[in-house]
């Protein structure tokens, strides 16, 4: 099993959708939320995504397609 530490940021219009619940039903991954701050106009979560490499990548792609900002926990690794 692989795992990936991610930060997810929800735009306002996505806050009411059960995105993580759908994620776990659609892909063979587990999630372990470590930190979160969800308010009426924005939400962010720090979590671990656990599964095979392939399922993790599919799950990340799906989250991005839902409009969620998905970044590795390191923040923006890329500089310049």
């Amino acid at each position, binding site marked *: 099993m692989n795992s990936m530490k991610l930060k997810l940021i929800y735009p306002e219009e996505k806050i009411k959708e059960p995105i993580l619940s759908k994620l776990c039903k659609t892909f063979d991954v587990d999630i372990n939320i470590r930190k979160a701050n969800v308010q009426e106009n924005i939400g962010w979560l720090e979590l671990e995504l656990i599964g095979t490499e392939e399922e993790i990548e599919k799950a990340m792609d799906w989250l991005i397609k839902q409009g969620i900002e998905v970044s590795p926990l390191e*923040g923006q690794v890329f*500089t310049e």
Partner: protein
Amino acid sequence: MAKIKGLACKECGREYPIEPIHVCEFCFGPLEVVYDYEEIKKNISREKIEKGPKSLWRYIDLLPVENATVGLSAGFTPLIKAENLGKELGLKNLYIKDDSVNHPTLSFKDRVVAVALSKAKEFGFDTAACASTGNLANSVSALASSSGMKCFVFIPSNLETNKIIGSLVFDPVVVAVDGNYDDVNRLSSEIANEFGWAFVNINVRPYYSEGSKTLAFEVAEQLGWKSPDAVVAPLASGSLYTKIWKGFNELKEVGLINDKPPRMYGAQASGCSPIYEAFKEGRDWIKPVKPDTIAKSIAIGNPADGPYAVKVAKESKGDMEIATNEEIIEGIKLLAKTEGIFTETAGGTTIAVLKKFAEKGVFNPEEIIVAYVTGNGYKTMEVLEGHLKSPIHIKPSLHEFKEKVIGQTVKG
């Protein structure tokens, strides 16, 4: 006795051994090196440092490295009393810390990479890696090649090759990933987890970032072992800014300076200012942005150390400001015209913000102010195209020279 106690989580304080790890397994907070200052105090002195190598390694007692093996000429850059710029801004004791001439690749990144790769070698890594198209890639490629490490650089594939010539010359393996910067970030993170490589700002980040403290150490020594009243520094990930603060605090902690650490002023580009926005809105978390600025070297939309930078600005009684593209270019030109230093856009941002704060009357004219210039303008000359005077064209005739050149310049 060891100078380092270990790593500790910046959020929950949980302790970890000195290993190539960077995130707390419990709360996912970033890990930071913790020193035994009582022990360091016994070994460190101004005299010992002054007799040390003319590089950042003179401060090895306050760095997380036992044996300096990489980047032996990095650091020890000039601190210039900026009389002309000071006059322009009404500041009598303005200094420029000039890392545009840092060795070997002309930006402050040579400091952090020297520390990261020296530590990586201690850990037994033989491969260095980073995701960058600019200063960081230049530095990792150069220092990996001179220290005999293998090197991988990750970039988005739609990038023009001429952007990375300054790295390619050192012969790293450049991996062009189909996707945007976010995709490269995610892949880099996955690779860092899986391969035994020193990914400079991922798994060896706690050590890497400590290199920026030397920007504080050098300034204090160059001022005659004192802290300036205020500093202005660029904000990208927030790491450099927070480590400059940590550096001055450490010097006080071990008794090398007596005065209080400086007020910390931070500079961001208006096209990428998530830390500034959090600071102004009183938020302790960062809302990521999509960068749109000419200041590419500081355009980090999701800055990892942003919340800590906000904290430092508050704690030090400093402030933050932003500069537009036009103001950044004016900042580059102002520094060049007054002090003969050609910096890139991050330096232009810092100078533009310094000017704004000076005009607002934030500084007392007698105070010692240090502005950090972190990179070299010769690397990104294209940003100035169309913003500089054109040459005066004449025929090879003395008459025309007198009429068009002397006439114009005397009149003008």
